[in-house]
């Protein structure tokens, strides 16, 4: 596969590992922010190639993981309403709420459909004028433009049977939150490549300055990740804290201006609870007043939702880089991808699920 295999080549990877070894004189803790980066690191065994002392910790960048249980329960309640067609990205189907997951609801008769583009939900709404079509609009800045596009087109088409359950989360406030925490381990970040492809990099400069932490906006392939790590370690060793872009083939400092414009039109900032972490101020997007008529929360009354997380779950500490999945007493025993207790096991991009998928279960046992 052209333009992909080059970034997975063993020789290049080995050369970068050597370069990191040559630069590093002492231990460093670097967090990769994105779930996709975590996945790639574990999939290619990158962390096991690293010199001793260079530790990668996994960040909160899996949108499925951090979607609050309360929101998932609300989604499930809406999906069970008569006449509703509930459209979701594939990996939300397996995420358990307080009472089962969307796959189980579908088995019990709910009309739950997997869409790979939010615009597919519009097509479904047009084809089913007598039904209510609800889009589960979750994700980071990466999925926001397409969700915003669907909502804005619904307005343009005057669709009255379409609504969206919006629960977007934003990366920079979460990074600031992690760095402000009293218990701080993370010394530098591999920044979220695809989020920055949309949003640009301007939001990260204040984080670098305020917390004196290097941020290297990094891609998702093994060579990207190691290059990003090399740049971060170089900064740490030199006592610098700067914003750098490793993922130049996708990221421009100004981001994607068209995507940002449609996001600004459809969404507005709000406080948002993160599963496993709690409320982070100003860390989400909700529908702006112009589009409030598409709010599924307003359209469907589902009563009060009280969601209680299992107390044993340490996903909050894992999402903050304070613990590894293998530190958890429930990991791989009570808590598995089939029976997840919390955030980081529920999605294939969650750190716990990635550890299980790629065999860390066996090694830590």
């Amino acid at each position, binding site marked *: 596969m052209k333009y992909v295999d080059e970034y997975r080549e063993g020789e290049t990877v080995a050369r970068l590992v050597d370069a990191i070894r040559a630069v590093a004189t002492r231990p460093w803790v670097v967090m990769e922010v994105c779930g996709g980066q975590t996945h790639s690191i574990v999939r*290619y065994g990158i962390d096991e190639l690293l010199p001793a002392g260079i530790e990668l910790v996994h960040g909160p960048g899996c949108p499925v993981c951090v979607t609050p249980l309360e929101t998932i329960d609300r989604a499930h309640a809406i999906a069970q309403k008569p006449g509703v067609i509930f459209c979701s990205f594939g990996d939300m189907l397996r995420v358990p709420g307080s009472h089962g997951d969307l796959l189980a609801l579908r088995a019990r008769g709910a009309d739950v459909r997997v*869409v790979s583009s939010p615009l597919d939900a519009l097509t479904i709404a047009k084809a089913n004028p007598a039904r209510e079509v609800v889009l589960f609009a979750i994700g980071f800045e990466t999925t926001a433009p397409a969700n915003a596009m669907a909502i804005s087109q619904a307005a343009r088409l005057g669709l009255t049977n379409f609504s969206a359950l919006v629960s977007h989360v934003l990366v920079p406030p979460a990074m600031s939150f992690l760095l402000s925490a009293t218990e701080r381990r993370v010394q530098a970040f591999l920044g979220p490549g695809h989020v920055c492809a949309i949003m640009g990099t301007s939001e990260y400069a204040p984080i670098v300055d305020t917390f004196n932490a290097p941020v290297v906006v990094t891609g998702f392939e093994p060579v990207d990740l190691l290059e990003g790590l090399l740049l971060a370690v170089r900064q740490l060793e030199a006592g610098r804290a700067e914003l750098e872009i490793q993922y130049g083939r996708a990221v421009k400092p100004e981001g994607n201006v068209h995507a940002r414009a449609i996001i600004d039109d459809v969404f507005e900032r709000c406080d948002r609870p993160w599963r496993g972490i709690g409320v982070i101020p100003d860390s989400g997007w909700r529908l702006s007043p112009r589009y409030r008529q598409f709010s599924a929360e307003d359209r469907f009354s589902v009563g009060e939702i009280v969601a209680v997380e299992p107390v044993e779950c340490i996903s909050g500490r894992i999402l903050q880089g304070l613990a590894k999945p293998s530190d958890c007493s429930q990991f791989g025993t009570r808590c598995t991808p089939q029976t997840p207790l919390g955030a980081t096991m529920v999605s294939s991009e969650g750190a716990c699920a990635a550890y299980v998928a790629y*065999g860390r279960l066996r090694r830590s046992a």
Partner: protein
Amino acid sequence: MRSVRRVWPPAEVRVIDCPMPIGAYDQIVLGHGSGGRLSADLVAKLFVPGFGLSNAPLEDSAIVDATGRIAITTDSFVVTPRFFPGGDLGRLAIAGTVNDLAVGGAEPRWISAAFILEEGLPIAELHRIVASMREACAASEVRLVTGDTKVVERGKGDGVFITTTGVGTVAAGRSLSITNPRVGDVLLASGPLGDHGVTILAQREATALETDLVSDVAPVIGLVRALLAAVPGVRWMRDPTRGGLASVACELAAGARVGVRLVEKALPFRDQVRAACELWGLEPMHMASEGRVIVAVAPEDADRALVALRGHALGQGAAIIGECVSAHAGSVVLASRAGGDRVVAMLSGEPLPRIC
């Protein structure tokens, strides 16, 4: 023994025209499963000519001559869409059962087919499915000897469900048990993997993709005969259907109590399969094939096995993909392209596309 070299699409596709409508209907109605006149019509006018069966009076059961060891397997087939690039439900229903016999070291001899039809199914579709089944039976030299049809109300089925049961004979001394492979054995794949799974997913609404990929669905008995003739000591074989290479490799590691080491760079995935899986966020090793085999042979037999597979029309893309090792017994490790190792797990649940 004649080796079958027919590949999909066949050089000449036999289209079996519907000679006359079944009764007055061009769709399946409940009466076609009633056991009465409409049922008899469906058998006499569709299944008997469609499968090329004799016009001898129909008995309640087929009686066949067999001696020695017998292999029996059964499988139900459901696929959406029913017709896909490279094949259809009918071809799948025969190939799937024939292949289960073949990889067990049996010569497929007889097959039964039970149809559950949904009210409203166009009879023309049933004709096409039956024609494909006949084609696949001919390619596998297996005889369809008995069958059954039921009809369910509209909405209570998904068009057509087919269950086939295959019976084969096993040569004396032949053993392809999963307990046979040992440390040092070499693993081969008979061709590109995952074509079927990706072709099907690409046809579905939620994962629609434009691709020139076609399903690999095919009876592999000819390929298996060629391999066993060249390497009678083949240790074990399995067809990597649902769950893909990952499931087969995990089953091998657990069943033979060996470690299985696969080499990512050596895995024969087409670029289209790898690219589609990249887009969907799915693992190519989880994608099904319906006309491939994974083979374990002693190291000294590896080259001969590779030549034998590549000499057959269905095995031209055969490759050595890994080996059985003494380390990590019971689990599968992939030497990744990037240089790191990782453990390969079975697919849990349905493959669902990832969010980003």
